[in-house]
């Protein structure tokens, strides 16, 4: 729309004589498309034999994931037509939407594994905490970026306080569910955003210290439940808990991945995962399926692809022309990176077992669609950056 509007007075070819480039990061786009499609196949492998949740159609999860993928791509494309600067301007709308949806889940949601994280919308279920990851990044990017009246981008005490308030609001809402895993992701993303925004280390250290202090307090006051603690203990000494809960999950996951060997047992041939030995093998433990069926080689390829996606997010953020875009791009990268590390880390026993999905791969619409939205934002930054930059050049030349 804006592009068309700009076409006449600020047409690149008419002013610069430079050849017009297509302003998309195709590496990012195809990597995301590839990993999401691959996720659909792995989910099919994980669910076609043993059907979780009383499902009878072996292609149930395959079909569902395909629909989510299609919906995500449609949203992704649609997002490209909105200039991210509009998003910056109306960031508070995302804040309200995020908090409202998280409030709704507390009121109308239903519980799975002891957390009230889901809303049933009849035709599908959604997990607002997934979308809120993106919403929170938008809000934090807006708060921490250069404000209009500022001459240059600085992280002031005021900004830190506002950003802390924003992220605490999101965190408290998910802690009430309670979903400690997602809250942890929010926290990591917030700390990383503070870091990349150029904030003084003093702020970062004091916020980090305050958080650790309040967790310690919360534990002493009995707000942290025993099973949460167990998961950490299991990580430290998994062989002590091989039969129950997290110890069992971890043991089975390690068996599955380890038994995959160098080349894996072959797609659709993973026994540990296909026979449901690994719990949640189509959602949180999808990486066990990959490790078992595709072996070390497959797992490394997946990690590298995810790494490239994160790298592209950071790259796009670093070459963006304003601080909001930079923080937005980096924020999406942090969301993906932190979830990749914690999720894969927990399946191979180097991270505690917290229930968070693997971006683009775990089954579930909210995860996939919110991740595609995030990538949509990054692509948006890239696309509008070019236009803005060229626009400015053209404008200056015009002046």
């Amino acid at each position: 729309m804006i592009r068309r509007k700009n076409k006449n007075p600020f047409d690149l070819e008419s002013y610069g004589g430079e050849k017009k480039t297509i302003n998309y990061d195709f590496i990012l786009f195809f990597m995301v498309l590839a990993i999401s499609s691959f996720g659909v196949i792995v989910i099919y492998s994980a669910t076609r034999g043993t059907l979780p949740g009383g499902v009878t159609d072996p292609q149930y999860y395959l079909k569902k994931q395909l629909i989510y993928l299609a919906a995500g791509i449609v949203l992704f494309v649609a997002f490209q037509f909105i200039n991210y600067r509009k998003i910056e301007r109306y960031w508070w709308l995302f804040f309200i939407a995020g908090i409202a949806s998280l409030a709704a889940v507390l009121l109308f949601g239903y519980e799975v594994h002891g957390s009230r994280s889901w809303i049933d919308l009849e035709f599908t279920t959604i997990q607002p905490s997934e979308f809120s990851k993106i919403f929170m990044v938008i809000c934090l990017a807006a708060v921490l970026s250069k404000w209009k009246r500022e001459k240059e981008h600085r992280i002031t005490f005021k900004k830190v306080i506002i950003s802390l308030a924003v992220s605490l609001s999101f965190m408290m809402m998910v802690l009430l569910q309670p979903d400690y895993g997602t809250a942890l992701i929010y926290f990591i993303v917030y700390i990383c955003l503070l870091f990349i925004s150029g904030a003084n280390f003093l702020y970062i250290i004091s916020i980090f210290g305050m958080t650790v202090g309040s967790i310690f307090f919360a534990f002493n006051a009995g707000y942290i439940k025993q099973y949460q603690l167990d998961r950490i203990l299991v990580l430290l000494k998994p062989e002590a808990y091989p039969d129950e809960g997290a110890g069992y999950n971890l043991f089975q996951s390690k068996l599955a991945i380890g038994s995959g060997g160098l080349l894996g047992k072959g797609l659709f041939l993973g026994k540990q995962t296909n026979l449901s030995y690994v719990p949640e093998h189509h959602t949180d433990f999808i990486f066990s399926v990959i490790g078992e069926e595709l072996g070390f080689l497959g797992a490394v390829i997946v990690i590298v692809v995810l790494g490239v996606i994160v790298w592209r997010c950071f790259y796009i953020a670093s070459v963006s022309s304003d601080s909001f875009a930079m923080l937005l791009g980096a924020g999406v990268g942090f969301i993906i990176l932190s979830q990749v590390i914690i999720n894969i880390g927990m399946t191979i026993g180097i991270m505690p077992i917290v229930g968070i999905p693997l971006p683009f791969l775990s089954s579930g619409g909210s995860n996939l669609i919110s991740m595609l939205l995030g990538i949509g934002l990054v692509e948006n930054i890239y696309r509008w950056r070019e236009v803005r930059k060229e626009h400015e050049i053209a404008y200056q030349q015009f002046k």
Partner: protein
Amino acid sequence: MNSNIRIRFKILFYLLVMILIVLILRLYFMQVMSGELYAELASESITREKTISAPRGDIYDCNGKLLVKSIPVKAVAVQPNIVSGNEDVMRILSDCLGISYYKIKKKVEESNVSYMDKVIIKQDIDTASVIYIEENSDKLPGVEVVDVYLRQYKYGSLASHILGYIGEISEEKLKSEEYNYNYEGGDQIGLGGLEETYESVLRGKKGKVVYEVDPLERPVSIIQEKEPISGNDLYLTIDIDLQKVVEESLYQSILEVRQKKIKDTDEYYKVTGGAVVVLSPGDGQILAMASYPTYDPELFVGGISEDDWNNLNDPDNHYPFLNRAISSFPPGSVFKIVTAYGGLNEGVITEGSSFNCAGVWYGLGGNFPYSCWLKSGHGSLNIVGAIKNSCDIYFYQVGYGLLKKLNNTEELLQKYSRIFGFGSETGVDIPGEDIGLVPDKEWKEEYFKDQKENAVWFPGDTVNMSIGQGDLKVTPLQMALAYSVIANRGIKYRPYLIKEIRDDEDVLFTGGSAEEYQDLQLEKDFIEIIEKGLTQVAGPGGTAYSVFMDFPVDEIPVAAKTGTAEFYGKQDYAWFASYAPVGDPEYVIVGMLEQAGSGGSNVAPIAEKIYRYLFNID
């Protein structure tokens, strides 16, 4: 973008690369370096192995009549190490199976301290229980429904001592070398009779399934399957119809004799047991073998109850498990054929040698009177008459003659006893055979080693032994074998019960092969002299004449000998040994009744009835 942020991005990039490298290194360690270990662990954790029991072979009689059959049923088995201590599981089982909780608990806990991997709680459970247990498998860890085979006895307690019974393998057996291999807890094994002897033939080969299970232990796929091979079938030499006649005659006679009083007293005969053997002398086939009291092998099907077991082992019930046909007793006069043959063979007597019987014999001195059973004496007798009348005094003198002949350096009477097969196993193919006792100097010295004055072989010992008294002990089967040696003119066959072993198609084994006989090189003339005497026993004036009065001995001559053995502290043991028809012997029949007085009047009727059946005489 200011340089501060640019540096932070650089830090971020290196951090990203480092984290990815950590993840990949960890994966390399797990998948490439320890992959095989994990793969082994993984496959162990999801594969299960289950044995499939093989149907036990059936048992048929000589005419192909089915005696014992295997029928498949469902049974509840538990793994004691899992179930022990789990009260809920045991309570559910108790309700479902109708067995008391404490019984289950006892069985499980007894097995848990031992090394049994699996015990059967109940066999032959109904379909409703099977469904209940399978549907509630999540509440019943360590409990499973298994296929087992039960024995079905078509003729009830008939031939039970021959057939034996089966039961759950005991812990000791499971540990022993013989059973260690191929057996597991809960297995049924033969515990007596042919079931025990032919265990390896009957049991077949277990099958095996290796399968994968899901986390709820539900089988999902079969990796390897080996079908069980059913056991081979036994075809016996026993004729079940004859066996029935034999057992019924034995039982009838026992009931009748129990009505009789000992002469000149008010005491009834106790008749605590008895045995009959019907042997085919020409090949050693055992056609019937009965022992009383008997037991019902059905009691063992599905595990014998404690009450039944105690009952069977109660001394008041005279040990029903004991197969009296292969247990030893003092033989009395039926043994005299050995003394007779020894005397003739050693030249102590000839056919014409006569001795006078005055009712008492003082051959060992005036202080040692030896009396004849007939107090009035038999007068002058030769060997034929002595057998016919069972004159003790004649045989005292033969025995004494044998003793004197080599100054008892060679123990001739013992030698002939052993030639006729006493004191050693007959080799019959059922377990528990008693070898009896042929007493001699060596034995006596050993037996009385603490009583020096008795540890000497006295001439009186030989004299006693010559009429089958003293410490001599023989089994009815040994006696039948000895009479078949007479009937066969010196050829001794190994008695046997298995005619054939068959699988589904072929005969795998045929019993009683030609090599299994032994020519004892006996003097035919002497045997004929003895046979002449034996033939007269059933004739007029013989000791069994009263019983065989109506029997057509002219057409079917019967060679027989009666016996009444004294047993210290008990009533007399009654014997009857015989074969018929003389000249072309087809059957040897030996009977024995414990504490039943005279063999002539009390055991001979059993044999007479059996001969009537065998020769179709009304």
